[in-house]
């Protein structure tokens, strides 16, 4: 393979990946759907604040803000061991959001690195 074809193949690979990302972005809606409940969490040295929350079933928008901790930079919502949604790299002063549609049940909010890493998210019937 000569150099030109190597470069071409790299560029082709790049375009392919870009296309993949464009598709991925199109299919996942990051904007909160109509009528979504909003839950706000702060990341602190202690963990997620509030640690426990309750919300009715349906679309939920999670707003996460780092309130000045360097220990916790990540927020996750788990169903058992499975991560349903998360936000990474939220350093001090950063904020981010994501949306999930949750059914009735008990979930975990996870702020790795905090003193109390895990909290409970209770989703009640509509």
């Amino acid at each position: 393979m000569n150099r030109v074809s190597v470069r071409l193949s790299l560029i082709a690979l790049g375009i392919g990946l870009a296309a993949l990302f464009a598709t991925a972005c199109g299919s996942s809606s990051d904007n909160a759907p109509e009528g979504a409940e909003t839950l706000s969490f702060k990341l602190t040295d202690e963990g997620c604040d509030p640690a426990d929350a309750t919300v009715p079933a349906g679309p939920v928008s999670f707003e996460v803000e780092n309130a000045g901790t360097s220990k916790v930079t990540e927020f996750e919502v788990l169903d058992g061991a499975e991560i349903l949604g998360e936000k990474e790299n939220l350093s001090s002063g950063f904020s981010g959001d994501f949306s999930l549609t949750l059914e009735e049940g008990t979930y975990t909010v996870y702020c790795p690195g905090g003193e109390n890493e895990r909290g409970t998210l209770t989703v009640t019937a509509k």
Partner: protein
Amino acid sequence: MIPTLVIALREGVEASLIVGIIAAFLVKESRGDALRQMWAGVAVAIALCIGVAVVLRVVGQQLPQREQEGLETVIGLVAVTAVSYMIVWMRRHARSFKAALEGSAATALAAGSTLALVAMAFLAVLREGFETSVFMLAAFQDASDTTAAGAGAVVGLLAALAIGIGIYRGGVRINLARFFRVTGLILVFVAAGLLATSVHTAHEAGWFNGLQGQALDLTWLVQPGTISGSLLTGMLGLQPTPTVGEALIYVAYAAPMAVYVLWPDRLRRLRQAPARARTAPAESPA
């Protein structure tokens, strides 16, 4: 400034390390042609990452987290394969480097192998690049104190770059045999870390949910939010609280590979001596 610094350092140092070792390796092998291809690939990857981050920001979309983690997992596993191949190749040729230094035939690297290394450098940058670019833009535009956050992120990325350059410089200077023994061992831990990180990102991609119990508490060593913690996570894939799955795969890979790299030459030679006469023609440079 420190919070963004440690994140940019952690995200940048892994790619910097891999690119630095590949660059030193290609220089050692006198493959200037492949080195130029490698830099072209790295430049394309950086441009691509910045491009994607800017487009996402312009259209007001966020990086799809699951897809990003999935991409990191796939590239991570490709990287483990490539790095393992490098380790085995180095080990196999460790003896012939002395001959190479004495001016006889250099160890030839097949065209396919250099292409694989070029591709590996490209993928290594791409792997963390999207997330890093998005983070850098956020540091400059969204943070509550954009000056401190932006400065921290830039310093962190420059520090990651400096580590890569340091490894490259050091790698070029020391002699071949030592280069391969030292980098061989470093690469074992880098690859083990990549495997463990792939287990981690596979979980975050929603592909793997088993063995998620906490295996160890390494927070005394890998302190979250510190520079040393970032380096340990970025370079060796160590998590502050590794899960059972991550710890198992790390040890399962690192232990036999470390023995393979460190096993004394003399013992190998004694054991291989009868077989060498038969295999010698096959080992001659392609």
